[in-house]
């Protein structure tokens, strides 16, 4: 509890400065509303925010889960088969370069204004960091450990379950954390481009009506959700770190 308070301190300080700045500099509410106004708006419009956040959360979680599972399956296939690797490798390189969010308008054209295009964008953005890290994690097993498994007549499957997969977890969890946050970006961008539901939609409504309070309130809700997801994954990551010891896990290149 104390640790959480300690972590929240700088943010509280930031909000205090913000509040003071709004009062002292007489910043109009439609430019930057003071934090207390944003909180009031969150409470006041809670039922509206809640209804729209359900849509966004569904898009984000579906996108994230599909991306993670798909990326793990692809990573396993790539590590096990040279042919699969040869086919997927060029796509991996191209996908790192393509600005995935720029595809959003295209998906809106193809799949309409519903949840599907947002799920696809969220999935696409979240997919590659997990894939890249999972491939590295599955591959980066000490050669002597592989030899050891071979010398005790372990099958490829046993080596995978007992060595490769556990070895990749410290690589996969940081990627999952990034992927979760990226899928939020994906869903929001998808909602900006074309939607009639969701927190991104509320932000656009707030924008065109100069209802900056609403815009900020939606931002607070989406940030809070992101923090919860982040914290959950981090808890898993910590437990793994405790067991494995802090490794030299590198974060790999991530593009949005």
């Amino acid at each position, binding site marked *: 509890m104390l640790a959480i308070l300690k972590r929240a301190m700088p943010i509280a300080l930031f909000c205090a400065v913000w509040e003071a700045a709004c009062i002292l500099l007489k910043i109009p509410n439609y430019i930057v509303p003071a934090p207390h106004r944003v909180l009031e708006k969150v409470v006041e419009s809670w039922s509206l925010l809640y209804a729209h956040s359900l849509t966004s959360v569904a898009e984000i979680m579906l996108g994230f889960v599909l991306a993670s599972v798909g990326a793990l399956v692809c990573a396993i296939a790539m590590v096990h088969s040279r042919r699969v690797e040869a086919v997927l490798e060029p796509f991996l390189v191209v996908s790192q370069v393509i600005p995935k969010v720029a595809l959003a308008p295209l998906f809106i054209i193809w799949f309409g204004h519903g949840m599907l295009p947002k799920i696809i964008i969220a999935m696409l953005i979240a997919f590659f960091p997990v894939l890249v890290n999972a491939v590295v994690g599955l591959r980066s097993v*000490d050669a*002597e*450990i592989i*030899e*050891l*498994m*071979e*010398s*005790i*007549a*372990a*099958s490829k499957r*046993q080596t995978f379950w*007992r*060595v490769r997969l*556990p070895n990749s*977890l410290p690589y996969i969890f940081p990627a999952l954390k990034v992927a979760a946050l990226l899928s939020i970006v994906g869903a929001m961008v998808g909602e900006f481009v074309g939607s009639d539901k969701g927190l991104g939609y509320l932000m656009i409504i707030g924008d065109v009506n100069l209802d900056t309070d609403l815009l900020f309130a939606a931002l607070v809700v989406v940030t809070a959700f992101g923090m919860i997801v982040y914290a959950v994954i981090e808890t898993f990551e910590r437990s793994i770190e405790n*067991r*494995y*010891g802090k*490794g030299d896990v590198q974060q790999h290149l991530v593009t949005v």
Partner: protein
Amino acid sequence: MAKNVRLVPLEAPSDASPKADPLTAAISLAGVDLAFHGDASPVKVLSSIDLRVEKKEFVSVVGRSGCGKSTLLRVIAGLLAPSKGDIAVMGTSALEARLYRSFGIVFQSNVMLPWLTALQNVRLPLDVVSPSSIPPRHSPAALLEMVGLKGQESKYPRQLSGGMRQRVAIARALSFDPPILLMDEPFAAVDALIRQKLHLLLMDICARTAKTVVFITHDVYEAVLLSDRVLVMSDRPGTIVADVKIPFARPRQPSLRSDPVYISLCSQILDRLMQE
């Protein structure tokens, strides 16, 4: 192939003397060549290796870094296939020997799985086979006790020192109670004091369990202290250039290091290595 049938080579070995019979030796290599595929031409790493290790014999292979001595161990373990030549381990091929659990390996670096405890690491070789097929002679806990790690069973590798991790690796290699121990520079990464303790431990284990040991090292003093025979390997392509019998009785004490015969043997072997 049925695992319980030991295959006998159909052809009689060319050298008919009983001493050369590959079926009676723990390990026998005849005319083994190994070449890796380089960029342009194959790189020859091992060249016409003839090697015979009797049962319960402790044989060290010394050589300079990169001479192919670790490669030789991997050929014996069936991790690398030779380009030419015959290998028999306990009278079977290297791959069959693996299935019969004829040998355990200890590598140089600590190859403990970081997410398993010491006890789980020792159990690993038992966990990859169905429990019913081969009953272990010693329990993993008893093996840990034998290597002096009683009470450390539930520690993770990161909580153990380098020397302790090497003890775990030895215990793991013994988990099937295999007749042969293959050791690839097992003590190269631990400091000198710990190494001495590990030497005593290894000699004690060999005395108690009557193992055949092939021990790869670049440390001549270590090789002479531990071994019944020391083989000297030349630089690439590696071949065995000297076979030195070590006459000291067992059990041996660390005080052997000041014995004049020991010292002269060591310098003879070092001289031989220098010539290469």
